[in-house]
């Protein structure tokens, strides 16, 4: 009799545990950020104050860039319309406070993923949408063609509040060169000061150098040195503590990259519904129940691909065709010699 009682209790306990598990996941699905976003009708997205190719507003106030496209993808997935995004331009200094204080829900602002940022300050990085590295720009007329020609006393213009300041110190220290760091709060002032001749070199992420070069009074007078002195994986960030929202942003980005891998574009997305490849069918919502996992319908990824395009389209439109970095380098798919590799959407 006692034997049975013991088994009965363990059964009850197991059921109870299972029950708590299911209620837990149900509760988790109720993402506060998602609910708020749907209620407001737009995605609140923090971007840069103007970095061509990544996030830049034209004269009419339309934002473009690959960082902007991540937010548009989330808007397409969550709200069904890629244009339902409210962009907030932020300086490097303001960005994390804006996110943790709840002023924005996604920070997609060429932000480097580092351990201390991820672990320390209440943020979660969801992925990488651009693999970058820090470089140096100099005037062609200086005759410098490599960082090995840098000498004691060189002055370097940069932004405050970025990993750049730290990398710069590591770099010059490792070479034993004394330098004068001139750090501004805004990128525009960095460019203006370097352009005026205040500094011998301008250092930031190489993509940033390529983009800012287009803003100089005479872009052809400047070159980006070949050396890369740091790893800068740039990607979107969300607040810590809302794992469903985190998943939505992560998989919106992943869907764009995976769509490129399977050759799904904004033009052929609808016709791909009849594809023979189940992976393709899952991505365009013709098979499986992927959206339900984070409280969305099944066509969330189809909308992303149709309205924003796949990662390759976004890169071409924003970075290659604008002449910033025509060569995709490490940002090519893993199948084509790059390092873009995302977990499968299944």
């Amino acid at each position, binding site marked *: 009799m006692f034997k049975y009682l013991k088994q009965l209790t363990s059964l009850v306990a197991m059921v109870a545990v299972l029950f708590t598990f299911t209620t837990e996941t149900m509760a988790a699905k109720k993402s506060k950020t998602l609910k708020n976003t749907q209620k407001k009708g737009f995605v609140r997205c923090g971007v840069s104050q103007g970095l061509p190719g990544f996030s830049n507003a034209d004269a009419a106030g339309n934002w473009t860039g690959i960082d902007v496209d991540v937010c548009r993808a989330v808007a397409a997935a969550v709200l069904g319309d890629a244009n339902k995004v409210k962009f907030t331009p932020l300086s490097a200094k303001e960005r994390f406070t804006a996110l943790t204080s709840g002023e924005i829900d996604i920070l997609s602002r060429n932000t480097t993923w580092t351990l201390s*940022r991820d672990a320390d300050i209440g943020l979660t990085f969801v992925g990488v949408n651009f693999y970058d590295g820090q470089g140096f720009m100099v005037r062609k007329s*200086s*005759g410098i063609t490599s960082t090995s020609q840098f000498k004691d006393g060189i002055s370097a213009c940069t932004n405050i*509040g970025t990993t750049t*300041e730290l990398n710069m110190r590591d770099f010059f*220290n490792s070479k034993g060169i004394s330098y004068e760091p*001139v*750090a501004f709060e805004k990128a525009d002032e960095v460019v203006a000061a370097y352009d*005026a001749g205040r500094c011998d070199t301008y250092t930031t992420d190489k993509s940033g150098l390529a983009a800012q070069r287009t803003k100089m009074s005479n872009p052809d007078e400047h070159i980006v040195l070949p050396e890369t002195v740091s790893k800068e994986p740039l990607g979107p960030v969300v607040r810590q*503590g809302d794992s469903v929202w985190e998943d939505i942003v992560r998989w919106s980005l992943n869907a764009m990259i995976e769509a490129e891998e399977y050759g799904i574009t904004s033009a052929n997305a609808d016709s791909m519904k009849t594809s023979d490849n189940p992976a393709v069918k899952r991505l365009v919502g013709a098979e499986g129940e992927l959206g339900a996992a984070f409280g969305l319908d099944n066509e969330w990824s189809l909308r992303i691909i149709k309205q924003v395009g796949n990662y390759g389209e976004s890169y071409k439109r924003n970075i290659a065709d604008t002449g910033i970095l025509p060569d995709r380098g490490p940002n090519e798919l893993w199948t084509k010699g790059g390092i873009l590799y995302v977990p499968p959407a299944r």
Partner: protein
Amino acid sequence: MDLKLQKIIPQLITVLVVVLVFGFFSYNAQINMENRGIDFGYGFLSQESSFDVQFSLIEYDGSHSYFRAYLVGLLNTILVSVIGIIIATILGVIVGIARLSPNYLINQFAAFYVEFFRNIPLLLQIFFWYFAALRALPLPQDADAMLGVFFLTIKGLYVPAFIWENFSVFLYSIIATIIAIVVIRIHARKVQETQGKQLPVFWISVGLIFILPLLSFLIGGVRLSFEVPVLKQLATTSFIYEGGVSLPPELIALALSLSLYTATFIAECVRAGIQGVGKGQKEAAASIGLTTNQILKLVVMPQALRIIIPPTTNQYLNLTKNSSLAAAIAYPDLVLVFAGTALMQTGKAIEIVSITMFTYLSLSISISIFMNWYNKKIAIQEK
């Protein structure tokens, strides 16, 4: 009893409301930080900062702590404020007096200066002096030497460094000079009060200022030599000056714009102060045979200062607080170094912003206390 209670209750309610509001905000911040996994604490101050700063009055590099970085920023803020206050005061007094000049050209020029500079936003002026003036400055290799040893270039002002031998002897001679001048002044006053004779205190002081330090060179073994900046080539078209002392253009532009801007307000305080002294005072002074300079020094200024000091204190406070605009042009002040870079690298927003606020508060209160003390000292001693 009732009346007493009536007085106390509103005060109690006010205190309660203030405490509740503060309590709510700190509780709210605590809950939110806990939810997002953000720790609160000042332990980061002793961690290695690992970023460098362009310009520092104390020894500092990235291997020092965040607290040291805070000191660097604080000292830079104090430096630019002190320079700004000194220049603004001198310029303000000159312009204020010039506005009252009977010479049409001088008073109109002073009026134009005041109206022009106080009506343009300060940030715009800082940008102007930094970016517009910066572009106009020559590159180091093209700079002409001023007086043979100063070089004003786009990368900063390079001045010769002083190299002293037996500097302490020189310092003692200066201290001796100051003591001697004070003693002579006291003596001269006594002589005047008892015998009515005036001693040429001014000329004696000038003589002392030259003679005592000179003696320290001649017999004290003090040697002074200069290290003149020398042009150094970094690359084909990239040069700097080595040796000497270099003042970054950011400091110059900031100090210049802060003092030009604040001087306009001080000039108006000075003008108001002088005009606030009754006309009869000047006429009475003139009738007993004082010269124009004596009237200004002995009769007008002591009375005008009482009117000038309180509003000028405000201007000093404004200048100190306005120096935080430094962040726009890369002058490494408290806001740029500590509330900027350090905040970003640590993510300790509440801690750093609170320290910064408290620091500015302390700076302002120190200036206030000093100026109030000075104001009391020159106030009319009622008997």
